[in-house]
């Protein structure tokens, strides 16, 4: 099993499609690329050893040796779930749109997939940075070319805002490489070297090396997540992005930020993370309440769901910084669950928008009477979003809350408000769109608003995932458990060993 193949296979697919003469043939090639990529990641999952926290399937090549930069790939419990989520969501997107969309659109998604895979599998900071940046480019074009009315504005904002974050990260990376030179005697961007560093930390001041670096990296990732108050790019980007783009944004791009906290911030800056953790927990709690309240008064369905994403990410941050196994596992699980739920919700909003050409809540009403299947599935994802037990949303939220309570009950007292507010905005939305009198918008049209067969398939698959994640969380947690426990126990002097490559 080669991780390089997993990363670069989408590129191979695109390349192959150049040599197919017919348009339909090209589509088939691109579609099969997504399918094979998914199968490859499933194969990785089966070959994955759940009994170790070590990096598996490691590939390492010297790249720019004078700076200690290497082409270094590996997978462990922190990344395996995200790898699967990436190929899974990309596959669903392809099932939906492989016949509908332009070839360049499909290729952009494959490149996005490549970049995301690369980011999740890189163990070298520079390599990670490169993939991290590459992921921005296809997204920029997806929003800017295929977006809604204000697509140019939104794509610009997305690009500049997140680039600003990346700039911080680049700064941090260079600083870190200098530190390795000082402490280890040679430049290195290898994460395993970074874990070994003993970065000077002085409690009580912001201007100690570790605290500064901690904030530099945190801001870079916080923009991506996005964390209040760095979130304002997200609602615009979501509203203007095409359906598939919103799915990728909410489902995966935001997770890059969370992943960054797992892979970089917590293990590399343990003292600073612990010392400044309260600040992030405060921001997380504030973000939950703030975003939930704003979500309640949104008039645009997509914007409402975008704000709900921000609220959910607030939970994730609380979990990350509660420094116990419940919080960490909860954050990880919430991240995966949110990837499924929010992309499903965005997908459904996109479907209905495609038919009615409006996202304004007030234009809707009584949809449950005319589109029963659509309503049932939307309700399932609504439940998952408001964390009803036995759906995917509950496990993460519960673990995060219990983790927060263990850290300090006060946090849980405030965070639990999100449980109430979350139900409020989702049910208000559901009531206004699905219940009541049938809106004049589609009362007299012959338009079939309900799902077609293919859409049903996609959504039922997502619903099955939602329920299995809610009922059998152990199956999903199995893959990340050891790694998370390892992180929880040893984040003070974190290290990852390498496992001999499996045959």
């Amino acid at each position, binding site marked *: 099993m080669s991780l390089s193949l997993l990363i670069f296979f989408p590129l191979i697919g695109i390349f192959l499609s150049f040599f197919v003469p017919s348009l339909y043939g090209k589509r088939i090639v691109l579609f099969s690329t997504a399918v094979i990529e998914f199968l490859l990641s499933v194969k990785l999952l089966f070959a994955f050893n759940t009994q170790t926290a070590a990096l598996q399937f490691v590939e390492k090549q010297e790249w720019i040796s004078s700076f200690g930069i290497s082409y270094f790939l590996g997978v462990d419990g922190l990344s395996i779930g995200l790898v699967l989520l990436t190929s899974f969501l990309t596959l669903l997107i392809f099932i939906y749109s492989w016949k509908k969309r332009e070839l360049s659109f499909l290729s952009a998604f494959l490149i996005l997939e490549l970049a995301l895979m690369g980011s999740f599998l890189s163990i070298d900071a520079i390599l990670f940075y490169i993939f991290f940046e590459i992921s921005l480019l296809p997204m920029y074009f997806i929003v800017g070319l295929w977006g809604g009315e204000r697509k140019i504005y939104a794509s610009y904002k997305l690009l*500049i*805002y997140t680039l600003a974050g990346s700039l911080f990260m680049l700064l941090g990376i260079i600083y870190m490489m200098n530190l390795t030179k000082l402490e280890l005697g040679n430049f290195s961007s290898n994460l395993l070297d970074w874990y070994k560093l003993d970065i000077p930390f002085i409690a009580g001041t912001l201007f100690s090396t570790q605290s500064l670096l901690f904030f530099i990296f945190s801001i870079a990732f916080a923009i991506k997540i996005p964390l209040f*108050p760095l979130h*304002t790019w997200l609602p615009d980007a979501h509203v203007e992005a095409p359906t598939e783009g919103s799915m990728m944004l909410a489902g995966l791009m935001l997770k890059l930020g969370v992943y960054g906290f797992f892979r970089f911030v917590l293990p590399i800056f343990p003292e600073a993370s612990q010392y400044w953790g309260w600040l992030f927990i405060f921001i997380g709690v504030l973000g939950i309440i*703030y975003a939930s*309240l*704003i979500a*309640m*008064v*949104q008039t645009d369905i997509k914007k409402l769901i975008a704000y709900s994403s921000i609220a959910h990410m607030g939970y994730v941050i609380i979990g990350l910084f509660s420094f116990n*196994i*419940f919080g960490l*596992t909860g954050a990880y699980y919430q991240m995966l669950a949110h990837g499924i739920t929010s992309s499903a919700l965005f997908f459904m909003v996109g479907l209905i928008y495609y038919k009615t050409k409006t996202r304004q809540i007030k234009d809707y009403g*009584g949809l*449950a*009477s005319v589109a*029963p299947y659509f309503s049932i599935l939307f309700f399932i994802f609504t*439940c998952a979003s408001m964390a*009803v*037990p*036995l759906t995917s949303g509950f*496990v993460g939220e*519960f*673990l995060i*809350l*219990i983790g927060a*309570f*263990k850290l300090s*009950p006060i946090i*849980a*007292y405030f965070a*639990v*408000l999100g*449980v*109430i507010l979350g*139900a*409020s905005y989702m*049910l*208000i939305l*559901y*009531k206004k769109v*699905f*219940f*009541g*009198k*049938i809106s004049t918008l589609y009362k007299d049209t012959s338009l079939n608003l309900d799902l077609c067969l293919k859409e049903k398939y996609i959504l039922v698959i997502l619903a099955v995932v939602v329920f299995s994640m809610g*009922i059998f*969380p*152990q199956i999903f947690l199995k893959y990340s458990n050891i790694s998370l426990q390892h992180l929880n126990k040893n984040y003070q002097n974190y290290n990852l060993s390498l496992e001999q490559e499996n045959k």
Partner: protein
Amino acid sequence: MQNLFFSLIFIFPLAGFFINAIRWNSKKVQLSGFIASGAALGSFVSALVLLLPFLSQDASERIINIYFFNWLEFEFLSVPFGFVLDSLSGIMTLVITGVGTLIHIFSISYMSGDDRPAKYFSYLNFFLFNMLILVLADNLLLTFVGWEGVGLCSYLLIGFWFSDIQKAKAGMKAFIVNRIGDAGFLLGLFGLFSIFGSLNYAEISVAAANTSPETWGVLSLACLFLFIGAAGKSAQIPLFVWLPDAMAGPTPVSALIHAATMVTSGIYLIVRLSSVFILVPNILHIIATVGVITMLLAASIAITQKDIKKVLAYSTVSQLGYMFIAVGVGAFSVAMFHLITHAFFKALMFLGAGSVIHSMRGEQNMDKMGGLKKYMPITYYTFLMGWLAIIGTPFFSGFFSKDEILFYSFASPLGHPLLWLLSVLGAGLTAFYMTRLMSLTFWGKEKFDSNVKPHEGDKFITIPLIILSILSIFAGLISVPHLISKTMLGHIPNFLQNTLALIAPNIQAIYMSPAQEFLLMFASVFVAGLMAALAFVFYIKKTSLPKILSNKFKVIYNLSLSKYKIDEGYNKIIVLPLQYISKSLSDMDKLFIDDITFKLSNFVQKLGSGFCFLQNGKLQSYAFYFVLGLGVIVGCFFIT
């Protein structure tokens, strides 16, 4: 074998749910109804098969555990899909599935005109399934799963006729208000977990016996949060506002969910954790106080309501208040006793009301009824039994259970004479509003339009009514107070108290002589009788009196009629400010936070254009800069 039957308790309703959910489009009401009723009955029979051997077993052996698989598993948090059938959950299971079956059968006729019967029955079965998870769970978190599940079903069923936006709103309100309670439940759960290190009921009650007094402060807080959860589900102050609105749902749903089963789960939770709650008397005082206030408030509202279902809804809130008084004074099995009898007579009355509404073509206003006695004899006579039971006519079920609560409110070490006095007052109010309901609906003059032809329902309607009325009469015999059993009925063992003695024992009451006890009993029966007679006079004999009185005491009357404007108050104090804040935040997000980034980018642009003049393209200027720069460098050299 045990495992099989235990699983069947769940499998029946779940299968019923799936079957009807798959054929949700079907319009065949009888087929859907039979599937669902069969599922409920199957579940009832399975529970019965498991529970019958209990009768011959020793009290300590009356427990069956079943374990499916681990839901969550961490170092020291382990939450299995594990269930426990003991006397307490067994009784609840029988009530839920038993009353549930009758209500399913009733629904077959009631929903006959509806165009989505399969969907209705699938929701109903799914509700049963979740309710069974709630009561049979062997740990708090699994109870919470059922807890949220029944809330969800309640939401779906209240808003079943969702094309009416008011009904959809009522469902939403129920869920959101319940969510406030659920948040409390979660916090209480975290609290108990941090104290006892386990969520399993059996382990908690063992650990509770050995707690040191230092933890009681934390324990009090956890119990208070759990009570908030219970108050949400069981409609107590300040979270009771959802229940009257929940009457928007179909009437059988009101009978099943909002009278007999779901709303009692708050009581069940506290009784299940009685070993913990008994350690924190300060919280029990709060519970009893909230209970008695809720009881009186709801009863005083019920007196003036015109909608028959609203009267019953407030009556339910009020009766739940009684149950909380019982747990508040430490009389846990008495609370269960009233829960059971109430489930019978209130389900009976809701179904009776449903039968009336059904035959009156949806009319719910009692001012447009009257004299129905002769048109609907079976409904009338069965309803009469419910009426006799709830007002506490001696030897009807409600009499026994309510009297036990009154006794403990006086004689428990946690009780107080004032508590007793207010409870008696509540009993009087209950007798008044229920007699008023009877007078306006079944007795007196016919006030309906001549084109409405009230008629008795078919056998699906009447059979459940008859069975429930029999239960309402005799259910009291399962727990005859020692006073009566000794002096009047020969020695009947107190079945319920003996059964629950290990799980939810009553607190030891202060000793009172039989004469004192009889005096207490007589006082409450007297007050109730008096108030019932008064209501009879008001609404049958001198029908002009209510009008005169209501004009005279207009302020009080309007206060009760408008339900003390509590909904409006919440709207003003909570909902509107929250909306205002949200709107302001939303604007701030756009105009301030987002604007900062624009300011930043504008600043950079300005900065760029500020230095723009330097790059003016004139060769001479560049040469000038060059010389200037050279001068500076040379100057530096000279200085150093």
